[in-house]
């Protein structure tokens, strides 16, 4: 049934026990994103080391199972990865959600979110954390 496809066990598990949840030092780069139509929100912090590898990533947020699980799965997927690979993960996940573009990397557990594609109004929920990550990386790589 399509509901089970949307709310897979792994999604509900991440919703109830989000990974990398919390706050880093205030001095770390931070992005706050909110979905004004539903009020879901996320605070994302990231540490890129000198080799441009994601050394640490944390998020805090309030919102639906889809937005929070997606953010949690995202932190797991990008932690410890070099920037160019993180970019590929972002692009590939966006493709998974929109059905446009190519999936160039193994998405692993993130594939559990594929069911969201069938619920167009919920795609923005799944993308909340990713939008924050994208803008944070743009800012960080510029500076």
């Amino acid at each position, binding site marked *: 049934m399509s*509901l*089970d496809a949307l*709310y897979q066990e792994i999604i509900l598990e991440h919703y109830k026990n989000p990974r990398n949840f919390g706050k880093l030092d205030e001095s770390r780069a931070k992005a706050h994103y909110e979905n004004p139509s*539903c*009020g879901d929100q996320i605070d994302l912090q990231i540490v890129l080391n000198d080799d441009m590898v994601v050394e640490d990533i944390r998020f805090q947020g309030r*919102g*639906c*199972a889809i937005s929070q699980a997606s953010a949690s799965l995202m932190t797991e997927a990008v932690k410890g990865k070099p920037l160019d690979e993180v970019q590929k993960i972002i692009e590939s996940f966006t493709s998974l959600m929109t059905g446009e573009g190519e999936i160039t990397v193994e998405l692993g557990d993130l594939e559990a979110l594929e069911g969201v594609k069938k619920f167009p109004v919920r795609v923005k929920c799944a993308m909340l954390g990713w939008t924050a990550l994208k803008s944070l990386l743009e800012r960080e790589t510029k500076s």
Partner: protein
Amino acid sequence: MIDLSRYRKDFPILNQTVKGRPLIYLDNAATAQKPLQVIGTVDQYYREYNSNVHRGLHTLSERATRAYEKAREKVARFIHAPRSEEVIFTRNTTESINLVAYTWARKFLKAGDAILLTEMEHHSNLVPWHLLREEKSIELRFIPVTPRGELDLQHLKQLLDGVRLVSVTHMSNVLGTINPVEVITEEAHAAGAKVLIDGAQAVPHMPVNVQDIDCDFYAFSGHKMCGPTGVGVLWARAEILRDMPPFLGGGEMIHEVHLNHSDYADIPNKFEAGTPNIAQAIGLGAAVDYLSRVGMENILQHEQEIGALAIEKLKSIKGLRIFGESEKRGAAISFEIEGVHPHDIATILDEQGIAIRAGHHCAQPLMRKFNVQSTARASFYFYNVPEEIDILVDALKTAKRLFGYVT
């Protein structure tokens, strides 16, 4: 329970399946469905006498003008307005409130004056006043909301000191609470303030008599009361409307125009610049006829009964919390379920053919007051039946189970 189910057959939209299940439409506080009588009236206008009003000298235009003005009379009678020219057709409640903010308040309020609102207002009764405050140094005050979801009127007299306008919702779109607008109006008038009532949730669901309330302005929307979208109403006392400057300038609202100045038409035309929403206004007239046939007393009784039954059955779900416990309430019921976000509830319900609203309901300050980000809301109308409550409750239990909670 009073049985109004015989009217369901007038609503073709209700007779369909969504995701393979019979549609259960519980988003009536957002917009109501339209009966054949309204759809047919709008259809007939476009098929038989579509033309512009008030200026054509031909047969079709005369017929359209008569129907448009007839709709104004019907609406006036429906809310017991003493004169039909006091009924101004707008786009919706939001535009009606903005009209008062942009014309009456801009002309008559000065720096230091205060406007009294409440903590349970819809954004449409907050933002227009924020905009006004950017222009004039007026003060905004708020009647607090109690944990039960009622207005705390204990300090109303002190709050009214220096207030020129009180603007308050008749029925909360989140809490369902029916506010004692007669009491508030009496106190406000004693303090020398004018009173605007946001009746968007009240007019569709209960008898409203603007003369009994004794308010100065009353705003509501057509689409929440079985009428078309795109038409709303501002009612105001004739003498106040005559003192107000026009809102929008253009055709239809003038008496005489010169290159450098113009004289304005009398009410109501003064506030209806340009070609109005003719089809929608005529459709609203048909909606008023329809609701009158059902009977507003019957509708109120049905909603209080079905609302009470829904609350009772919802409360049987463990971990479900209802916002708004006023004794005097309509059938808009906001709730949350511990551990299941309102958006997930809405999606899971939609998969079972049930339409509810989830979100902040355009009342973010009220959400903050209750310390929630959003709620789920089921809102009933006279065409809803008790069986739909049972299906709703079962679906909510499914949602809990899906999220791994014991029901």
